[in-house]
């Protein structure tokens, strides 16, 4: 894990030193803000012209911003399976403009113009107490504008009072205690604006990933109790066309051990890989397609040779060798943090041990 990288610790020490320096010299701090930060942090009016520079300007949340307490105007949502991003936890909300609704037709969920998807990335100080103290790193907005979807990353400040639009990306050193009680240090990478499309890419247009029928067609807990999310949206008058759970596709939660192994593995690959590895995605070049419904063994990688994998292939010949996870390129690339080897190419700097274990088991039981 990146935690042990000497560069990183150097960086962490340097930034610590720097922050100490700053805190000792309030005059300097003010001056810096005056020249660099003030323009960004100046009060901002909610003009209706997006993007705003500050997250708080949108008025999504009530009370202190860091509480992420949703206002009436936004709906919480959760995909059945979640994309792994260095163990960051996420809270997600959708804003649909007053009087507008989403239209569901078959699998297609069409969101109205003006829709804003809000995704907050945070780390609890201690994963054994996920509701406890936490640090929010970034909030990504996807706004459905007339010209199509746009992605805007907002970086939270140290004091957690607000987040500002930062299109060039950033790095944040994050410390937490994991679910095993081990201290972890992660060099969290905030993507630059255009990197968002490395994943959110459908035929070279930006597109939502989690807010799709198959990812939302399941029960979650709302304040009023547990309910299918799409049914809930119907009830709120924010959706039409939902004909009940079985009438539409749905994915399982790959973490749910009571589900069939194949369903869990395919759900995992779908949410973590298929945004690129599908006919409409940027990794269509590879011929490796990892969408949930993929039935063609060759397209799934079974005895498929790589194309442009370069050193990503390691010592291996095929993407998947049934029964031999450790001879399969797919697992090799999931199980690496080396640039040029690690998949997905962005969004993680650490290995998702649970995901690797799931895919290993899946390949090993293949015949």
């Amino acid at each position, binding site marked *: 894990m990146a935690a042990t990288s000497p560069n990183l610790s150097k960086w962490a020490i340097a930034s610590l030193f720097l922050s100490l320096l700053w805190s000792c010299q309030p005059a300097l701090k003010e001056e810096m803000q005056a020249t660099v930060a003030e323009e960004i942090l100046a009060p901002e009016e909610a003009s209706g012209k997006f993007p705003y520079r500050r997250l708080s300007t949108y008025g999504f949340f009530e009370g202190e911003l860091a509480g992420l307490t949703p206002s009436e105007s936004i709906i919480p949502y959760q995909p059945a399976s979640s994309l792994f991003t260095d163990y960051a936890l996420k809270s997600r909300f959708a804003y649909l403009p007053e009087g507008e609704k989403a239209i569901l037709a078959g699998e297609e969920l069409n969101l109205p113009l003006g829709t804003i998807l809000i995704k907050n990335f945070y780390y609890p100080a201690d994963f054994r107490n996920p509701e406890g103290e936490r640090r929010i790193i970034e909030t990504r907005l996807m706004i459905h504008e007339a010209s199509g979807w746009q992605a805007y990353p907002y970086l939270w400040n140290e004091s957690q009072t607000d987040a500002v639009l930062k299109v060039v990306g950033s790095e944040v050193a994050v410390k937490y205690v994991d679910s095993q009680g081990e201290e972890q240090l992660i060099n969290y990478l905030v993507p630059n604006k255009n990197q968002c499309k490395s994943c959110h890419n459908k035929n070279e247009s930006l597109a939502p990933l989690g807010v799709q029928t198959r990812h939302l067609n399941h029960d979650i807990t709302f304040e009023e109790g547990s309910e299918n999310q799409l049914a809930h949206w119907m009830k709120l008058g924010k959706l039409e066309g939902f004909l009940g759970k079985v009438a539409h596709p749905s994915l399982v939660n790959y973490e749910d051990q009571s589900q069939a192994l194949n369903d869990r593995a395919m759900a995992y690959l779908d949410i973590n890989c298929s945004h690129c590895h599908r006919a409409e995605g940027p990794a269509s070049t590879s011929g490796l397609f990892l969408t949930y419904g993929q039935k063609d063994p060759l397209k799934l990688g079974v005895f498929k040779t790589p194309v*442009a994998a370069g050193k990503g*292939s390691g010592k291996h010949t095929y993407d998947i060798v049934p029964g031999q996870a450790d001879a399969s390129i797919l697992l090799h690339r999931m199980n690496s943090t080396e640039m*040029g080897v690690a998949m997905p190419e962005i969004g993680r700097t650490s290995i998702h041990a649970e995901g690797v274990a799931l895919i290993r088991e899946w390949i090993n039981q293949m015949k």
Partner: protein
Amino acid sequence: MAKRIHHSLEMIRSLLLFSICLLLFSCGTQSDEQTFDSSNLRRATPEEVDALVEAFILAEDSSTIRIPEGFYELKTQLILDNKTAIRIQGDGMDKTVLSFRNLKSGGEGVKIVGKDITIENLSIEDAPGDGIKAQHTDGITFRKINVTWTNGDKSKNGTYAIYPVQCKNVLIDECIASHSKDAGIYVGQSEDIVVKNSLAFGNVAGIEIENCDRAEVYGNTARDNAGGILVFNLPGLPKGDGRKTRIYDNDIIDNNHENFATSISDGPNGNTVTMIPPGSGIVLLAAKEVEIFNNRILRNKTYGVAIASYQVTGFPAEAPNWSPYTTDISLHDNEYDRGSWFSLPDLTRELGQLVSIYNAHGWLKTQDIIYDGIWDESLATSIDSNPMRICIQEPSIKDLRFTRFYLMEGEDNIDAFEDYATFQSCKPSPVGLGLSSLPVLHSTTR
């Protein structure tokens, strides 16, 4: 096929181990040559670097992104997304250097998607994955860009230096690509391509055209790679078989670099390029309609030109919209030189071993032209009718070493023939894409 050959070769290989030790000079060469030293350039400030990243993100159509002289250390990717008519312009490949040594995420240093994009006069160094990738772009020009890796240890280098894929109207002109672990200039699944006046050296493969339609490759130098120029069709890709490539007026010389696509202890993996024996001039693999003429194919120690079917890889050879055979090849009027007598063919790769041991002219003899002789048996019962339409019309053929192998019965019955007459009698059908037919040369935006 290759698997079966493999076993008989195993024994012979051990016999040959002794000679390998003696003949160290038969091993691949190495190169860490740099065209210039970027370490003396002015370091761009972090603000300048951020401004550059922002310039890519906020670029407006029909604008120029100027990148003044300096060494830019980037920690994030430069991505130009869905823009039209953008010119990305440095101050010269030895003046403006984009270094991705500290990149922490992303598959390539620079990524371009759009229409009518030109990138020129700069260098790209040390990207962990690919140097520059253009995808889904109609009209992409790379001009006078240099893409390289500066690691002494080349095992850390990235995959492709210049990498247009799923593009149309691709022009690569006066570029330099070096030290990539796969192909320096790699054009994949694209249409209407010109690669000209460029230099590829120190790569595993110099220039590779893969699953492409209508490519003109001329006036280039491919030297000191493991393989000089490759034309491949791989199975199972969205774009099936590519057709029509012309390779002419190129210098394809001294391509004797070791194949560092994998470490020596590991040997080949599933990447086809890992199987390329050092000492390969031109390699055709499952290629269709290729014309190769007026090239200088000099001092490539294993062979000048290899005409091969996909079966030699030993990988599954069935896929939709694709055939494993190499067909409709015209090879004419090239200049050959096998190099000095002590330059021995490769022994590190199966194809090298096949040449070294089984060629029709004697052990360890460099070949000018080899043909694996694998044909589609549904079309003909023997190769005598030249069913794959391989046309070889070299004026100097009498002085050349030509080998046609017979591999269709596997390891027990490998044979080789030096008779070229079968492949001379055919009339080469010109590949028929005159330069003037390529829209890439006529676009007004270049």
